[in-house]
């Protein structure tokens, strides 16, 4: 007895130590994008994704919208809003004075001496094709009413001014460094903030969502509209939702188990022991995930807590066996328990072998949790469990059925499966993990209407041995993207080389300007303005600038934040950058075969990984079936093994068939649930088949109680707001019910067979 207890303590110590060694703050993740497995992606893609995720994860964009005529009021309100945001604990960084003079001056100081070599694409085309049009444009501006700010001495054709001022195609007014954008009847200002990471210790609060609500009321009182978008809002919403679900599902599941235990065992001790076994299961599952994987997603944790529904099987089986009159015969149930554990663990650890983080975490959590709970039952229960014995006659009271009924039921279920399976349809989507709430989706739609220039989630990753090669490759990509834009495949793109072309291009532009300055139209421009030919020549000579070579790092050091964000940096493997895409219509017509250029499309990649994992799991099922059959056959002989395996097989096939017939597109989570149904089915079938004649009523009681608790635990998962979890729960509920019905039928048959 003491040896068992010592062994249990040693195992607890081992789990604790392993978890402590690998423990890291932030082991519980809430970021939806973290679920995308990047194990098979190239390291540079992963790094790009991490940088983008980093930018995305913390940033919340606020848009204050008012009527177009009250731009000034809006700017003042923006200043007030900024003060409130700054004062809020949920916000760490805020940027809204976009027209910040100092930054412009630094950039101007570096770039103005390069005015002969930096051109916008439009001016480059004009200079190459119709240079006289550039002269006409400038004369019209000079004679026009608003020709202000033309620098006749240094930038007479405003090519540098165009280059420097090129920005989004929106009308802007600036009030105290706050730009107010006009779009139709609306005016708006933008505030970019960084949110404090969601605190997951203890109670998840929603400071950001509350702040959003308060500020929206504040804006409404001023006849303004406040819109907000950003991953932190979703993270907070999802985290709070997940925690509510943990409480509700975990709480109700435990409450149901408590009630059942009290009703059946009429004692507190089995109940406390069962709860303890569940706690041990959850603890060892968490420890194993931390020790083996380092991190766990909160969705995996929600799932993992439902391990209680399964771990209780072992406790109930053990306890019900103890209810049998006479001396304790714990050894009678051990073979069944062990076979049940080995087969279930095989099913769960199969999930852990997949490269998909969520499934891997779920698999490890549940597998280790089962082992922990099982060891607690086997090591501690024999000495701690004290129970009043009761004679039971449940099995005998079942209505007598012909042996063929059980087999007929199996056959019918398999036939339903065979009929429905050809109609199977698949569907994998990131939306399965998370559907944004309407109020956030609404904000996003409105904001996108006013500000269509938000980047797509798909982007190009460009790599080169050094920054020079990188810029050359970007330049090549831009050429193709320009044709794609002309064909309407995308609205726009943003790249470093658009603002800072490769040196070869800068040199060509410099030569283009040199030739232009020496041309007849430019001479004509000056004589039109009243200069003599000699004066014109002197003016042109003064315009000429030497070529100035600036490195990309020098340029980046002063370039605006939006360009620095595109730069991923250099390491031993080379340099990398991102080309952002806007208004993407069709991915198919984007360039795909350029060297060092990769199109990265995270949602598509995630959907692809999910389909791949689903197919893998579906293929895994027969293999698991075979392994379990062999394991059982080694213990019971081939014939009985086939009879045992028939039950979970029929349950799985029929559950899948019902899901297909209900019109659901089968996703990874249906399939993962089927694997669990299989595990549960194997458990029940093993317990049923291996219980001796005098154990039957107690085995049936254990199965019944296990089934009902599982049903409660998983049935409640079907209510989850996360479609993936709901699919999982519903599939399991259906599967467990079928398994329970089949097991009861088996017992009815067995009783009749026994009476014969």
């Amino acid at each position, binding site marked *: 007895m003491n040896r068992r207890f010592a062994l249990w303590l040693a195992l607890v110590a081992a789990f604790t130590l392993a978890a402590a060694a690998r423990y890291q703050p932030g082991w519980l993740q809430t970021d939806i994008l973290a679920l995308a497995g990047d194990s098979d992606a190239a390291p540079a893609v992963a790094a790009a994704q991490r940088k983008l995720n980093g930018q995305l994860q913390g940033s919340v964009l606020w848009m204050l919208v008012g009527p177009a005529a009250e731009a000034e009021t809006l700017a*003042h309100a923006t200043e007030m809003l900024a003060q409130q945001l700054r004062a809020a604990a949920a916000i760490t960084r805020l940027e809204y004075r976009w027209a910040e003079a100092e930054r412009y001056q630094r950039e101007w100081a570096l770039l103005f001496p390069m005015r002969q070599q930096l051109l916008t694409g439009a001016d480059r085309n004009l200079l190459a094709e119709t240079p006289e049009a550039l002269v006409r444009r400038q004369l*019209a501006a000079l*004679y*026009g009413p608003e020709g*202000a*700010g033309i620098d006749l001495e240094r930038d007479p054709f405003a090519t540098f*001014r165009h280059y420097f*001022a090129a920005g989004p195609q929106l009308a802007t007014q600036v009030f105290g460094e706050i730009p107010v954008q006009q779009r139709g009847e609306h005016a708006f200002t933008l505030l970019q903030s960084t949110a404090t990471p969601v605190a997951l210790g203890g109670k998840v609060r929603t400071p950001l969502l509350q702040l959003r609500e308060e500020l929206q009321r504040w804006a409404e009182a001023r006849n303004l509209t406040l819109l907000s978008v950003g991953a932190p809002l979703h993270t907070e919403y999802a985290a709070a939702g997940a925690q509510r679900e943990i409480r509700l599902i975990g709480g109700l599941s435990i409450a149901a188990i408590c009630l059942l235990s009290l009703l059946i065992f009429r004692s507190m001790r089995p109940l406390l022991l069962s709860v303890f076994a569940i706690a041990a299961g959850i603890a060892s599952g968490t420890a194993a995930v931390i020790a083996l994987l380092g991190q766990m997603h909160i969705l995996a944790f929600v799932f993992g807590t439902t391990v209680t529904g399964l771990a209780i099987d072992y406790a109930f089986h053990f306890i019900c066996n103890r209810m049998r009159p006479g001396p304790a015969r714990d050894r009678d149930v051990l073979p069944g328990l062990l076979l049940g554990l080995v087969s279930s663990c095989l099913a769960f650890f199969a999930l852990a072998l997949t490269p998909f983080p969520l499934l891997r975490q779920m698999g490890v959590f549940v597998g280790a949790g089962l082992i922990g709970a099982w060891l607690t039952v086997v090591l501690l229960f024999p000495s701690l469990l004290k129970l009043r014995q009761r004679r039971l006659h449940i099995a005998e009271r079942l209505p007598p059925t012909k042996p063929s009924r059980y087999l007929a039921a199996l056959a019918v279920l398999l036939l339903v499966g065979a009929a429905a399976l050809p109609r199977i349809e698949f569907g994998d989507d990131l939306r399965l993990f998370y559907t944004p709430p309407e109020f956030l989706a609404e904000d996003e739609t409105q904001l996108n209407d006013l500000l269509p220039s938000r980047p797509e989630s798909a982007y190009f990753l460009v790599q080169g041995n050094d920054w020079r090669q990188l810029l050359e490759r970007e330049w090549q990509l831009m050429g193709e993207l320009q044709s794609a834009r002309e064909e309407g495949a995308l609205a726009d793109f943003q790249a470093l080389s658009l603002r800072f072309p490769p040196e070869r291009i800068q040199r060509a532009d410099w030569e283009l300007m040199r030739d232009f300055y020496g041309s007849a139209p430019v001479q004509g421009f000056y004589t*039109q*303005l009243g200069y003599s030919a000699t004066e014109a020549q002197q003016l042109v000579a003064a315009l000429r600038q030497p070529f100035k070579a600036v490195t990309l790092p020098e340029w980046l050091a002063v370039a605006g934040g939006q360009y620095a964000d595109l730069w991923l940096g250099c390491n031993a493997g080379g340099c990398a950058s991102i080309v952002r895409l806007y208004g993407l219509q069709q991915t198919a017509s984007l360039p795909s075969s350029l060297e060092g250029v990769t199109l990265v499309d995270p949602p598509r990649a995630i959907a692809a990984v999910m389909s791949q994992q689903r197919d893998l799991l579906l293929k895994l099922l027969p293999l698991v079936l075979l392994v379990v059959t062999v394991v059982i056959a080694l213990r019971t002989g081939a014939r009985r093994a086939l009879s045992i395996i028939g039950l979970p097989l029929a349950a799985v096939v029929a559950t899948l068939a019902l899901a297909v017939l209900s019109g659901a597109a089968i996703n990874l989570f249906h399939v993962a649930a089927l694997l669990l149904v299989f595990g549960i089915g194997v458990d029940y079938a093993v317990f049923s088949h291996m219980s001796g004649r005098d154990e039957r009523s107690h085995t049936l009681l254990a199965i019944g109680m296990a089934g009902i608790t599982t049903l409660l635990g998983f049935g409640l998962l079907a209510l989850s707001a996360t479609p993936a979890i709901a699919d999982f729960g519903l599939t399991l509920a259906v599967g467990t019910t079928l398994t329970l019905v089949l097991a009861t039928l088996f017992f009815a048959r067995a009783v009749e067979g026994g009476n014969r």
Partner: protein
Amino acid sequence: MRALMLALSLIVFPLQTLAIAPEQVRALAQIEARLQTAPQMLGRFEQKKTLPQLPRPLLSSGVVALSQKQGVSWRIEQPLASHLLLNEESAGDDALARQIAYPLLQIFRGNFSALDGLFYVVGENAEDKWQVTLTPKNEAIARVIASIEVSGDRAIEQIRLAEANSAVTEMQLLELRAVDETDPQFKAEFNDLTATPQE
């Protein structure tokens, strides 16, 4: 509400905003009332632009059309042909041009009070004519515009735009009259633009 905003803006922008004195508010209101703006107006202009670097001023003339809906059409006939449209969206991607286009647009519309966020607006309502002087409140605009003086009687007659780089543009608006929306010449001024690019 507007008074509250002004009071609040005093706290927010202590250096930029001085409350407009009540007599100024009255003067501006009188000028805006005196100014007879119609939804569509058509006239001619003569412009003299004096740039410090240039040996002689740049003289130009042409047709101006004002539309509350479509903005301002400014068609130069002499010494070169050019046509451009000023409205909320027209200045395109040139941030500097936008800084000037907006106040000009409001001036042509006779909507001086809309500019008191960007400019100190001082109005003088004399017997024979009125004059409004605009000086930038904020540094970004002050880097481009030194001041804008507008004068007139029942219509705007003259606009004098002094730039920070000491360029001065004087625009005389002549024969400015209200026209019907269906006036063929008026329609042509805006239709032309849809056919030809602005520059």
